């Protein structure tokens, strides 16, 4: 049992942190967020040069062949810096699906292009009016001769605004769920792009008999989608840990330097004890985030573990986010000061791939199946 990063992972963390420190402060981040794309192409290029974009993909597919721990390390740094680049939604999730399901030709065509930063993708799975986990999608796939067409609505599609090719989940004619590659600019595709409250970007896609290419060999790929979600949930947890670490740091710094009634706020026990509770919540959530990643690294793809981590991280994010703003007072409400942006991102993560209540609902439905929850059996 070992919870420490190895030397290479530590180096990856430090390199990523250094790049992001150089690229972003509160002002630069706000300026980047106000551009059309909402992220910075030159930072993206450096991600590609560092090998971050192809990190989890096999070397044969143009990637670095790294594991979930490396993904966790990068996601935590992105969270700490609140970097808006479309790393998870534009590369890791769709790339992971291509790597898992795609044919040799599709992998060769798409993964090197994702890894070198020239192509962006997105996973169009969530449909309006539904809650995680998605049981069946109402978007349908139809076979027309040798090709396929897709009809349906997907929203929100994270990073869907800048995607060149979209991976769409659709119900197959014979039942089951398939995955399809759709040209984001193709005919029969309507894309409405928007900014999300956390300064990121997304899109709604309406597909009307849109031409599509089946990803992989066909058949039901529900298992691959579940695996992609488990990996993405672990990555989101890791990002949230970086965000909460920074939110707590900002809060404790503020308590030390802000003076009222002639003394620093840190003299007031009602505040320092709440900061201590934030620390406790963060450490507990960190343990669960590590757990989610380490399980995947051990070859265990278990949606229950991912739900446990996301619930724990969600609860901590709720507490830390609200307390961070409250303990800053008025300055925490301003768009100029960073803490509110961190909280906005935490809220967005909460509502991506299952909110705390969704995960609790899933866990609660299973309590009668076992006697006790243990870390290892």
């Amino acid at each position, binding site marked *: 049992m070992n919870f420490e990063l190895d030397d290479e992972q530590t180096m990856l963390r430090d390199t990523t942190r250094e790049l992001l420190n150089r690229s972003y402060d509160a002002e630069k981040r706000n300026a980047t967020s106000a551009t059309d794309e909402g992220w910075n192409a030159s930072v993206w290029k450096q991600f590609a040069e560092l090998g971050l974009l192809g990190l989890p993909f096999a070397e044969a597919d143009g990637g670095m062949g790294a594991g979930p721990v490396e993904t966790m390390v990068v996601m935590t740094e992105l969270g700490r810096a609140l970097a808006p680049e479309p790393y998870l939604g534009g590369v890791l999730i769709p790339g992971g699906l291509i790597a898992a399901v795609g044919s040799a030709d599709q992998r060769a065509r798409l993964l090197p292009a994702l890894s070198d930063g020239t192509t962006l993708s997105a996973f169009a799975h969530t449909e309006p009016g539904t809650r995680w986990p998605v049981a069946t999608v109402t978007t349908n796939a139809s076979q027309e001769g040798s090709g396929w067409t897709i009809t349906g609505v997907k929203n929100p599609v994270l990073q869907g605004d800048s995607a060149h090719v979209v991976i769409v989940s659709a119900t197959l004619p014979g039942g089951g769920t398939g995955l399809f590659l759709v040209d984001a600019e193709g005919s029969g595709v309507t894309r409405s792009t928007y900014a999300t409250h956390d300064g990121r970007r997304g899109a709604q896609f309406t597909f009307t008999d849109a031409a599509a290419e089946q990803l992989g060999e066909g058949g039901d790929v529900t298992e691959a989608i579940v695996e992609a979600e488990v990996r993405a949930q672990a990555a989101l947890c890791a990002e949230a840990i970086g965000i909460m670490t920074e939110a*707590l740091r900002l809060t404790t710094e503020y308590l030390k330097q802000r003076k009222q009634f002639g003394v620093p706020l840190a003299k007031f026990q009602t505040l320092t004890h709440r900061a201590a509770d934030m620390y*406790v919540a963060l*450490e507990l959530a960190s343990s*669960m985030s590590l757990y989610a*990643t*380490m399980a995947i690294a051990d070859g265990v793809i278990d949606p229950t573990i991912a739900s446990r981590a996301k619930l724990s991280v969600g609860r901590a994010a709720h507490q830390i986010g609200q307390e961070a703003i409250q303990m800053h007072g008025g300055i925490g409400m301003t768009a100029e000061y960073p803490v509110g942006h961190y909280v906005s991102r935490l809220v967005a993560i909460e509502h991506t791939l299952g909110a705390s209540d969704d995960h609790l609902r899933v866990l609660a439905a299973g*309590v009668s199946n076992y006697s006790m*929850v243990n870390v290892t059996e």
Partner: protein
Amino acid sequence: MNLELTTEEVAFREEMRKFFTTEFSPELRARAAGFGKLTREDIVAGQQILNAHGLAVPHWPVEWGGKDWTPVQRHIYSEEMQLASVPNPLPFNVSMVGPVIAAFGSQEQKEKFLPATANADIWWCQGFSEPEAGSDLASLKTAAVRDGADYIVNGQKTWTTLAQHAEWIFCLVRTDASAQKRQAGISFLLIDLATPGITVRPIKLIDGSVEVNEVFFDNVRVPAENLVGEENKGWDYAKFLLGNERTGVTRVGFSKTLVATAKEKAREVRVGTGTLLDDPLFAARLAELENDLLALDLTQLRVVASSADGKPNPASSLLKLRGSELQQAATELLMDVAGPDSLPVNTVEIDSPEWAQQAAPRYLNYRKVSIYSGSSEVQRSIIASSILGL
């Protein structure tokens, strides 16, 4: 980074599991699990079984019966003991005074006390808190004045746990009232409770039990050879002791066992056309508590895995704080599962089972865990100052 135990650790866990589940009678373990009450004899007998197998004091120095275990092995030992509901060896003996004597005591003290302490031939109690010295322990007033070969002790201790069963008490006493810093005038003294001038008065608690006592010292003559270490250095030894005490109070295994019992019992309670366990509201509360316990379990493992250098981790305050909260949540859950059957107490020949009759007293009793050994507020202050720098 990896989650798995090594093959050796898995084998060790199996060995511990087998030992705890075969060497201790099911009746004793059921009483310890909350289906009955543990007597003084139960606790002594339990510790003597451990000691007979060389497993009562694994964290002591090897020459005094300790095992040269890794932090992970120690954790497995303690976790498996709790999961099997084996009564814990007396904490006053094995976690508190034993390690202090082993680290700071004289050779004579070690020989006289350590074997008897490991075997529970002596039952120790802890004389730290006083009426005016609770969280602010350094303000203690009980005085020991040197008189020839003895100290004369006067004062009062309180909240002295299980002193009614004890033969000896280890006390913090003030030996230098003029010390510049309050902490610098305190010594660590071992006192035979049979010495004339000592009165032990029980304090009845909100659960109806007698668990703590007041201990009065009226011109009690204590041989100076019972001073541990140096005079006026007692505060250092107390800090050493409290560091040991706090990491031992997480008790995740204990809480997990209580929650598993609550779940098992909830299957037997009818709600509407199903059982309490089928109820979504109850299931959600249970699932959340199980998740909180898992998070603490993992956090404890992180601390254990990183403490290979033997240094105390400041995160032990987190473990104490959260461990207390979850023990309390677990006792509350079990009480709520007992529901109306938690109203009667100490009554035989009615349908309310014994575990249910004990659920509310245990809930009330467990309000103590966020108060003793540094209250939750003290732990928050430690986290704020020593970890967050506030």
